[in-house]
């Protein structure tokens, strides 16, 4: 039996579904279509799909706005930006839903979710179809968290965990067990709902961190400066601001002594505990203050340091807005932080409602955010290990930051990482693309239909009109290659695949 024998009967009349952006939201239109015979007049060529409202481009050089609440339009594009920066992008229809709430309610719906987070959709599996083993299997920790980003109904919690993972960057390359990385993840995830003081205390005694920065090797007989330095430089005060001296680091290292662990041949570092015998009980002088300081005192001295609040605000801001805040905004955020006893949430909420957040320049999505938002927009579950090496190649494998300063958020895109983003799209399309060699693809699809279909597949992402015009131009160039009748189906199917590939690969989709 030849492959052609199973060919479906040609249906002349059918219903076509189309996604249309009504301006208020995407609606699905169902339309009766009559398929024309060869030689019959071709359907009228439309002007292409209706361009989405163009994102309002900021004027350059960008002038930071004073502190306040954003008062402008809060539509689909603004809601998309909110979801891209405070979550992992919209699932189809989600931006419209959020836009209907208005800005403030939309922000609070993300930052103050009710109840426990729910993961909806199929549970993640590896490529053998087996459940993930995040504690044990290499890379499954990455997949496990990526899945939470894709499926959670509380994306803000996951995004803040990612922010703090970058902030207190710990790599499993220096940690015995993946379980310890995931334990740290829960600590980081809880961080947004408490004070920063609390988070610093918890992270200082965190077993993964005690291994990663040698806190567990630091004892009164032979102090190790590693954690003391990064606590000040990267976590609480910042380098080159005159906040501390080399002597402060050495003295703080002494004050941090006392943590130890045992070494198990199979498990590695276990049984983390504070041992007063290992702690240096002599007096230390930190930030010009003398005392018999211990590890809790060091945490407190760092977060109550007069240069801490500004460091905290600048760093937190930089995760959400790519241009520095105005002096006025910076001062207001510092005040807000101090007045709320160094709670994290009020500051984030103020940033997410600031005019700069909505009207300021775009920023590049981190690779894992790109990956998660791609899967969210397609509604795809985690079904393959490939996301591990793809994210790694794109520059961001979870639980594997390049070093203790985290990822370099200013340099996400180059010829190597762009290639891996491209491949992420190719892999995501594995299950979604049209098969050029089966007979199901319609051989009379117009450019307009093709572009609409591809955009609809991604829930009508907000592309700039010049990019959208290029998609249409590409789609228009393909029919000229169809010389023989047999070529129509495969070429049009491949055109669809090319469109599906280009939409998330285009410059816009890299940005939030």
């Amino acid at each position: 039996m030849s492959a052609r024998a199973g060919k479906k009967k040609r249906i002349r009349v059918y219903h076509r579904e189309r996604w249309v952006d009504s301006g208020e939201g995407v609606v699905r239109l169902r339309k009766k279509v009559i398929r024309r015979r060869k030689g019959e007049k071709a359907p009228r060529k439309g002007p292409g799909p209706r361009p989405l409202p163009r994102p309002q481009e900021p004027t350059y050089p960008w002038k930071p706005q004073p502190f306040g609440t954003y008062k402008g339009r809060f539509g689909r594009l603004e809601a998309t930006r909110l979801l891209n920066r405070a979550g992992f992008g919209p699932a189809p229809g989600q931006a419209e839903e959020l836009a209907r709430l208005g800005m403030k309610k939309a922000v609070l719906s993300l930052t103050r979710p009710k109840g426990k987070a729910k993961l909806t959709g199929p549970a993640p599996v590896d490529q053998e179809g087996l459940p993930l083993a995040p504690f044990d299997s290499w890379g499954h920790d990455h997949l496990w968290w990526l899945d939470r980003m894709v499926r959670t109904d509380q994306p803000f919690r996951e995004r803040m965990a990612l922010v703090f993972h970058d902030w207190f960057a710990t790599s499993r390359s220096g940690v015995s067990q993946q379980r310890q990385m995931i334990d740290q993840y829960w600590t980081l995830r809880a961080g947004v709902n408490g004070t920063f003081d609390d988070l610093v205390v918890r992270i200082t005694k965190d077993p993964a961190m005690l291994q990663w920065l040698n806190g567990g090797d630091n004892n009164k007989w032979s102090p190790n400066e590693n954690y003391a330095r990064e606590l000040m430089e990267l976590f609480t005060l910042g380098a080159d601001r005159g906040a501390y001296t080399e002597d402060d680091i050495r003295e703080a290292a002494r004050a941090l002594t006392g943590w130890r662990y045992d070494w198990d041949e199979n498990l590695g570092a276990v049984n983390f505990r504070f041992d007063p015998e290992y702690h240096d009980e002599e007096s230390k002088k930190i930030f010009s203050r003398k005392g018999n300081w211990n590890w809790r005192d060091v945490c407190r001295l760092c977060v109550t340091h007069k240069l801490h609040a500004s460091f905290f605000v600048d760093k937190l801001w930089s995760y959400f807005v790519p241009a520095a805040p105005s002096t006025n905004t910076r001062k207001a955020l510092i005040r807000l932080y101090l007045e709320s006893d160094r709670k994290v949430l009020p500051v984030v909420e103020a940033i997410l409602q600031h005019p700069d957040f909505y009207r300021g320049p775009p920023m590049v999505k981190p690779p894992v955010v790109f990956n998660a938002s791609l899967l969210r927009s397609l509604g795809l579950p985690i079904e393959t290990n490939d996301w591990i090496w793809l994210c790694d190649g794109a520059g961001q494998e979870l639980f594997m930051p390049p070093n203790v300063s985290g990822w370099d958020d200013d340099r996400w895109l180059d010829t190597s990482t762009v290639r891996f983003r491209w491949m992420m799209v190719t892999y995501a399309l594995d299950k979604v693309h049209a098969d050029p060699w089966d007979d199901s693809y319609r051989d009379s699809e117009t450019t307009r239909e093709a572009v609409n279909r591809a955009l609809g597949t991604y829930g009508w992402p907000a592309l700039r009109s010049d990019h959208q015009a290029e998609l249409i131009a590409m789609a228009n160039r393909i029919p000229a290659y169809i010389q023989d009748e047999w070529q129509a189906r495969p070429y049009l199917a491949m055109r669809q695949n090319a469109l599906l590939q280009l939409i998330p690969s285009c410059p816009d989709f890299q940005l939030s």
Partner: protein
Amino acid sequence: MNRPGCCDNYTRSRLFRSAAAQAGQGLPQIESGMPMPAGTGLTRRGFIAGAAGLALAVYGAGKTPLPFFEDGIAEAAQSDRILVSIFLDGGADALSLLAPVGHPRYRELRPVLALDEGDGIAFTEDPSLRWHPSAAALAQLYGEGKVTVFPAVGYTDPNQSHFTSRHFWEVGELDTDARTGWMGRYLDLVGSETNPLQGLSLSSSLSPSLATLDKPVAAVEGITGYDLWSHASEPVSDEMFRSFTNMGSMKSQSPALDDSRRAIRATNIVRQTLANFGDFESPVIYPEARLGTQLSGLAALLGAGMPLHLVSVTADGAYDTHSAQVEEFDGAIKATCDSILAFQRDLEARGLQDRVLVQVWSEFGRRPEENGSAGTDHGAAGVAFLIGSRASGRMVGEFPGLVNLDEDDNLRHTSDFRAMYCSILEQWFGHEAAPIIPGAAGFARPVLIK
């Protein structure tokens, strides 16, 4: 499917035989004035390098006459000077690499980490120092007069933060706000608008040293297999890539959008250039090390006449050895030095040794006094090398000794990394250092090239 203008094949060895060098013409799509391969009239020309078994494809504008390419390749192959910068990430321990065994305090400061009596390899320019046994390959090149050693390189007011100090080295100045790398600034002045391979990071992301203001540069983790797959094939995929390039070529005021477009445009060019760069054979055997693999590919690219100019790569190993230093350091240094030796031999076999200079650096050295975890904490002055047949082979600055340490008990520097950069720019590239390295006039100009 036949399409016009596709796949004219030429033998590269024939090109070399016939081509006379002509000044001022680079490889296809390198020289300014060459049209961008941005869609219209794109022609793919496959050059097969018979001798090395290399196949590579070069794209250029179809209307450009072929002799232009021939001359361009010959020219690029014969006169370009290449710098390969190898980074030891984490602050490599200078006192292990070149152990000051002849200094009285050495064994007191390094009770655990000191070399055993009589261990190591003699360092002729200063008998008080000995090469670490794992650096034997480097010592061998040193013996051939191909290594210029900076035994204590650094800068005034040394910063002991990895990130700040590394940044200073990358940007070539002591400015935490600088946004372009020192190699990037050189490319901004002399580089092309259309050749991203002129500044190549052999890594999964671009080295900040190569960050330019607006000239295209590239990052490629592996030399081979750089291709973009999709669920569309020719001819549809050609149109898809044409649109991808077009999207990368649009103008914008937004820095992030511009970055995104520039990266996409460069990705396309690299894809077109490297797509057919398949398996290659090296004339020498490289060690089993990431750096070795990358350098072997690099030598093959250079051998094929690819338009590379500045290359950056990170060596094997994590040199931030706060604990159990020997476990990490010895293997990492051996992998690094063996790879460098193989690379030098490869270049010599290909006759490229006079065109390539290798620079090895780290963000700082480690503290002379070891800590209690059989490791070392962050220090100040460190060690750097320039390697190649044209390297002067003469030590720059002396070893400062272990008695007179700085206020943080760290090694004092006897040469400045910016002086090294100035000399590389002027003596190797023949380009004035002043517009690239701030305060260039104030730095010495050690003789680095012979």
